[in-house]
């Protein structure tokens, strides 16, 4: 087949050259000329050269420098999404050039001649998805020609086979071996249950059946840890002072208890408790659908889902984060909603970390890749990325966390959930390939230095435009009532999607109809592939033609592959091969409940008291502002489109020069309606290192503080839980998980904020080459979604007017365990942990909300990492005004007053004309008048006539804005 190499070089810009490989049996030089002319280069800024690749002739290339250099060319491996190559084929079709069959894109980099080719390849490419060739100009070109030919070669066709696994005869050791060999992540009890099922059936399972069960029973799909029976023990301790406010903590303090399912006992029950106290139909769906759903106005509903994509992001940061965003968007499409906002919360190792262990990418490289992946997907889908957080801690070096969330908007009640027997199963969107196999089980294993080479297939690159096209037609299909049920094709691929949709009915699938990216996939691979950008729909037969017509009109692939039945069985065929024949009831209810042990050991650091007297306030403040978790995230935020859709009425960056960190973004979903939605986040993993119970309360408090600070109504706030944890089979990790979940119950009930959705990502551990295990800090993300009655009443955190009176709302206690003052090493990490006072916090939030609605608040900022001093600095930076604050009344110790991280606190600036009414509105609550906003841009803080801090705002800003400069946010090519 004729093969052509096109080289494109930019004029006057250093940067990689773009290479294209074009192949087609009938592809003529004339056709290549046309493609090169109209498609492959921009004559104003680029020059181009093309030639035929012929094994017998040397390759020539005018853009290869004559000087001695090392040239490295990078391409995606065959089978990995190459969107640029696919664009060339699409463009050729639109130009009328039908003879182009394959196109691939490459990047060509130039390095010093002495560079080590292996090292260069490792730096320029991610090995599990990309391949490279390195050479020096002037060398023989036969190897290059062979490399190019390999890239466009068709996969060798294989005969579809179904293999039977001899399970019935296996002993326990062999059962475990089968699980490990297949990356099934099933334990012995589960393998025995499967064995018993097939013994009763009188046959052994097929590869497809075993894989189907493994995916359905995976942690990712069935949450077996959160549904486990847990035996919890600790040394009995004093119950909290107000046991009725902390009922679950009180129970745990008793010393021993058994919890039958964390999710039912703590999370779902909290929601039930909260909702029994309300008489409105506000929560429309919690823990049932792909996303939680709330009523919005009388005619709409909003949905919200947050997911994690941690393991893939550790191995291939761009692709991992990219497909993480794509996946959570499909969750919202799975409740028939239009995605209107994205959020991302990221946890990385320290940017200045030493070189990481083998098999682990440096945190800076992970951070850059993840940010690029989020930008690529969100921006291309046209969904604004409006909020989130970025945290840095040494504990995330080998296991970064990538939380992606999407908010959806839909007309009320249009999401159908009524699959009927006879409905056609339609797979829509992207094609199926060998990518993403074992993603669901892969997420349940610990990472090691060899994981990348063993389960590289679990990592993928997204194709946002395919998802965008699907989104466009799905909303039309919903409005036209063309489907009776829909779900995303995520972990477990078709096996999970169809298995779940047909759980109560039964389904029959014919895999030979599934459109594949290339030939050669085995039936079980088609069935299990987690290839991106696919949805599965149940379509009534009389709507099928209308749906397919709609899809054709917008060039979205949609294919009937089977139908739902009424026989309670999951039957899967590839032509006449039987791939799967399972009882739906066994598949969904046959998994034995896990039994786990939890043993709690209190953190010894909590009984120490840190020495605060040695801390120099101004130095501490500057170092806190430079800490990457506190430093300005503007460089990252500016690369995300947060304006598209026109709904972002409070931006992530606010103030005079839009440099201030907003507590939360506000979106106005419907242009004509004043009601808004606020998105706030709470995440305090450093507290989790000491006690996940108080971490959970602090995270709920922080998420609520954020939404209340801008004007969200605490009584119209729902929350999501996302746990990222280590190995739950370790009793200490499990005990932490129990305590965090217990904190979720106590917090949600006390604040009246129901959980509407949640997800867990466990086994975030890394085992290095020497067998040492490293778990991440216990990390709970609480995502709050609050209504703002009228966006015109929203408040931002920037100081606005000199002369405004500044208040602190909330009591300050000396609580430094897990604090950022400890993180920067200025004090020992220990002492009291920041504790939420559930007796006052809910009343504080409600009263502040009343004051904001009454228009009494000019600026408001919540106190979090780094305490009062950091919050005051940020308000001054954003408003380019000064502050004069007197802290005498706050605490008898000034370091506590400045830097303690006691929750439930706000700094508030009030117009002097409104102070009396403001104080009235908050009467009975701990409110302290601290000082005034000044024209002179200096942060001036005193305590008992002693100046603690006197630093120009310009200095604060410079330090705060430089904190993240080491993270590269430039467009990385490829």
């Amino acid at each position, binding site marked *: 087949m004729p093969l052509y190499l096109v080289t494109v070089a930019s004029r006057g810009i250093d940067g990689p050259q773009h290479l294209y490989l074009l192949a087609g049996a009938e592809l003529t030089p004339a056709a290549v000329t046309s493609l090169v002319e109209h498609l492959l280069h921009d004559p104003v800024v680029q020059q181009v050269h093309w030639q035929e690749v012929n094994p017998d002739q040397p390759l020539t290339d005018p853009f290869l420098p004559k000087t001695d250099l090392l040239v490295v060319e990078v391409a995606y491996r065959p089978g990995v999404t190459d969107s640029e190559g696919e664009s060339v084929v699409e463009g050729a079709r639109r130009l009328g050039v039908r003879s182009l069959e394959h196109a691939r894109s490459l990047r060509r980099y130039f390095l010093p001649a002495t560079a080590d080719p292996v090292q260069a390849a490792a730096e320029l490419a991610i090995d599990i998805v990309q391949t490279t060739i390195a050479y020096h100009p002037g060398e023989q070109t036969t190897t290059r020609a062979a490399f190019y030919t390999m890239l466009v070669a068709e996969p060798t066709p294989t005969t579809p086979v179904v293999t039977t696994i001899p399970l019935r005869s296996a002993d326990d050791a062999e059962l475990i071996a089968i699980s490990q060999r297949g990356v099934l992540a099933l334990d012995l009890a589960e393998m025995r249950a499967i064995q018993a099922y097939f013994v009763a059936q009188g046959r052994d399972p097929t590869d497809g059946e075993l894989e189907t069960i493994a995916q359905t029973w995976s942690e990712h799909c069935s949450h077996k840890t959160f549904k486990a029976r847990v035996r919890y023990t600790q040394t009995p301790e004093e119950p909290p002072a107000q046991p009725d406010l902390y009922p679950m903590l009180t129970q745990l303090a008793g010393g021993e208890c058994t919890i039958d399912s964390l999710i039912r006992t703590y999370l779902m029950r909290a929601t039930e408790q909260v909702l029994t106290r309300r008489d409105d139909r506000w929560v429309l769906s919690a823990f049932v659908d792909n996303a939680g759903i709330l009523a919005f106005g009388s005619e709409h509903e909003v949905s919200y889902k947050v997911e994690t994509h941690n393991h893939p992001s550790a191995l291939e940061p761009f692709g991992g984060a990219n497909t993480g965003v794509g996946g959570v968007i499909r969750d919202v499409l799975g409740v028939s909603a239009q995605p209107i906002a994205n959020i991302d919360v990221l946890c990385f190792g320290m940017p200045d970390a030493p070189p990481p262990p083998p098999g682990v990418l440096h945190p800076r490289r992970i951070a850059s890749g993840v940010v690029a992946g989020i930008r690529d997907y969100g921006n291309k889908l046209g969904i604004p990325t409006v909020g989130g957080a970025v945290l840095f801690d040494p504990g995330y070096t080998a296991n970064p966390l990538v939380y992606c969330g999407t908010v959806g908007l839909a007309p009320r009640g249009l999401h159908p959930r009524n699959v009927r027997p006879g409905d056609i199963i339609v797979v829509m969107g992207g094609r199926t390939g060998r990518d993403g196999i074992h993603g669901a089980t892969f997420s349940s294993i610990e990472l090691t230095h060899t994981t990348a080479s063993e389960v590289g297939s679990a990592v993928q690159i997204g194709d946002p435009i395919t998802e965008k096209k699907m989104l466009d037609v799905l909303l039309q299909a919903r409005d036209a009532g063309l489907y009776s049920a829909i779900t995303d094709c995520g972990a477990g691929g078709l096996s999970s999607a169809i298995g779940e949709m047909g759980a109560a009915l039964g389904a029959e699938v014919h895999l030979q109809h599934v459109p594949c990216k290339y030939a050669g996939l085995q039936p079980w691979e088609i069935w299990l592939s987690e290839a991106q950008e696919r949805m599965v729909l149940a379509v009534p037969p009389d709507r099928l033609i209308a749906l397919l017509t709609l899809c054709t009109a917008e060039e979205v692939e949609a294919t009937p592959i089977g139908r739902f039945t009424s026989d309670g069985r999951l039957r899967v065929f590839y032509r006449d091969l039987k791939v799967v024949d399972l009882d739906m009831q066994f598949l969904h209810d046959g998994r034995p409940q896990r039994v786990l042990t939890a043993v709690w050991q209190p953190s010894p650091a909590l009984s120490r008291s840190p020495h605060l007297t040695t801390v120099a306030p101004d130095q501490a403040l500057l170092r806190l502002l430079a800490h990457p978790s506190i430093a300005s995230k503007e460089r990252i935020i500016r690369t995300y489109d947060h304006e598209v859709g*026109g709904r972002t009425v409070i931006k992530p960056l606010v103030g005079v020069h839009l440099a201030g960190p907003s507590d939360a973004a506000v979106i106005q979903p419907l242009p004509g309606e004043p009601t808004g939605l606020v998105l706030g986040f709470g995440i305090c993993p450093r507290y989790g290192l000491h006690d996940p119970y108080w971490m959970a309360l602090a995270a709920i408090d922080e998420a609520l503080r954020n939404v209340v600070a801008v004007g969200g109504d605490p009584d119209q706030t729902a929350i999501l839980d996302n746990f990222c944890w280590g190995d739950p089979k370790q009793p200490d990790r499990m005990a932490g998980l129990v305590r965090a979940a217990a904190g979720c119950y106590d917090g949600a009930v006390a604040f009246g904020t129901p959980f509407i959705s949640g997800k867990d990502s466990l086994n975030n551990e890394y085992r290095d080459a020497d067998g040492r295990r490293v778990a991440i800090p216990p990390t709970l993300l609480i995502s709050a979604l609050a209504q703002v009655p009228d966006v015109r009443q929203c408040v931002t955190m920037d100081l606005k007017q000199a002369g405004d009176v500044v208040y602190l709302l909330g009591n300050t206690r000396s609580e430094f365990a897990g604090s950022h003052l400890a993180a920067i090493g200025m004090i020992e990490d220990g002492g009291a942990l920041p504790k939420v006072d559930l007796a006052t916090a809910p009343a504080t939030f409600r009263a502040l909300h009343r004051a904001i609605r009454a228009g009494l608040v000019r600026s408001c900022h919540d106190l979090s990492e780094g305490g009062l001093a950091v919050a005051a600095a940020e308000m001054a930076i954003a408003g380019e005004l000064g502050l004069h604050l007197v802290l005498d009344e706050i605490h008898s110790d000034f370091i506590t007053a400045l830097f303690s991280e006691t929750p439930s606190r706000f700094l508030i600036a009030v117009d002097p004309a409104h102070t009396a009414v403001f104080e009235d509105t908050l009467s009975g609550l701990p409110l302290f008048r601290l000082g005034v906003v000044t024209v002179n841009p200096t942060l001036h803080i005193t305590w008992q006539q002693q100046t603690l801090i006197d630093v120009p705002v310009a200095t604060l800003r410079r330090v705060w804005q430089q904190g993240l400069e080491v993270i590269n946010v430039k467009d990385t090519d490829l």
Partner: protein
Amino acid sequence: MELKVLILRAPGINRDADAALACELAGAYPERIHVNRLIEGSIRLTDYAMLVIPGGFSYGDHLGAGRLLAVDLIHRLGDELERFVADGRPVIGICNGFQVLVKAGLLPGPLRQPPRVTLTTNESHQFECRWVQLEAVANSRCLFTRGIEHPLEVPVAHGEGRIAVRDEATLIELESNGLVALRYLGDGYPANPNGSPHAIAGLCNAQGNVLGLMPHPENAVLPHQHPRWTREPTRHEGDGLQIFRNAVRYAASL
């Protein structure tokens, strides 16, 4: 009379609803139409008074922003589009739409000349989402920026918005022929977010009825879309609405 505006949709175009809202607020009746309907002929461009090519990442922008949709416009809709423009009907390309018009040769025009102007990677080598100030260029031929005397505050959101020209003479010609319609106000980065020479933010054709611009006036039409509304006097509308209102008024006058 109902003034119908065709808002072009294509795979990856994503600010079509935003542009439609702006046109509606400007008093027109926008219809979002997929490019395939025009190509197959089931919908005709000539039935519309105005065309908007909105922002997004058409076909993914993998081969340079706007390249593939430009191929559609030129190779599959060329004649119809050329007539539309020759008739003097307004065409506005925003962000990706601007890139499409430039890559198709409609801007700065005339068509079928060797390309002399393009839009390429921002000088910062990164995507830029931020608010900018725009000035309407006084001597411009553009029909929709006339009468705009105050700077417009609007957001940009792009990675490839820097004007690049074949040679210095082209730049001088753009200026002297009144083809520069909009300029970023203020010195250097980030006031000029992409590093365009002469701070060019928007271009028009010689007739003045085709305007392309990188910033997003359609995301600055409502008062609370402004990034500093919590600290500034109340607005009644966003600055960007003026461009749409002018274009609609002009289309109505034809």
